[in-house]
């Protein structure tokens, strides 16, 4: 089993990278590897609450993040410094959860806010890092 990390640094909608990146994560979830996602820089905007694409006609990817827990992608690391620079708090982000089978299906948060230093450690621990 390898540790796969998907690094997200783009804001949603301005480019296709977040949407197509998410497709890789969902397919990758079927391969029984240790999967996590990192949101750095503008990548944190992907998790912004209340995205409404009706008037822009863009594909609304936001609901798909809600499915990640069901695909056993339960570790979404968000860099604190990136949030701070953008005036965002955890409360501004979608409430993404997963159900822990080992604790009677207790609902737990998937978003884990980490410091830059902690993220640096996490990157070191990976086997394969993909960038979107």
């Amino acid at each position, binding site marked *: 089993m*390898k540790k*796969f990390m998907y690094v997200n640094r783009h804001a949603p909608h301005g480019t*296709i*990278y977040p949407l*197509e990146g998410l*497709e*890789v994560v969902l*397919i*990758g979830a*079927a*391969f029984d*590897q240790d999967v996590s996602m990192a949101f750095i820089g503008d990548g944190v905007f992907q998790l912004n609450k209340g995205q409404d694409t009706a008037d822009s006609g863009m594909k609304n990817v936001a609901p798909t993040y809600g499915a990640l827990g069901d695909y056993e992608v339960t570790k979404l690391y968000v860099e604190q410094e990136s949030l701070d620079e953008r005036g965002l708090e955890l409360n501004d982000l979608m409430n993404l959860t997963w159900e822990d089978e080992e604790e009677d299906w207790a609902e737990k948060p998937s978003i884990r806010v980490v410091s830059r230093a902690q993220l640096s450690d996490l990157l070191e621990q990976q086997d*394969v*890092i*993909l*960038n979107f």
Partner: protein
Amino acid sequence: MKFSVMVNEGPYTHQAADTAYHFTRAALNAGHEIFRVFFYHDGVYNGTRMTTPPQDDRHIVDRWSELAHDHDIDLVVCVAAAQRRGILDKDEAKRNGKDGDNIAPGFRISGLGQLIEAGIEADRLLVFGD
């Protein structure tokens, strides 16, 4: 060592396809194995045989096809990204009711699972993009 290479941008617009190609050549020259080159996002445009670049410039698509031919390299274009951008082989054209196909020699169209496999099977996976 076994390498997998991911190419996220199309030919000419970004240098990514060039850097990826030169890296791949250098790895082969050094005796390493290339497990797969996987084309995603606009990288799928590297796989159309319809390009006619100016004569005094490098032919990026042909270069990949030659590499595949000379070194038996597996060049895979992601089906989802290809469908979005209009890169098709004969099967895809038939399946989607299109009146033509344009995949270049040496490339094949397949799913994202091939990218994950490329990451699992290789010792190193490198990503070239914007």
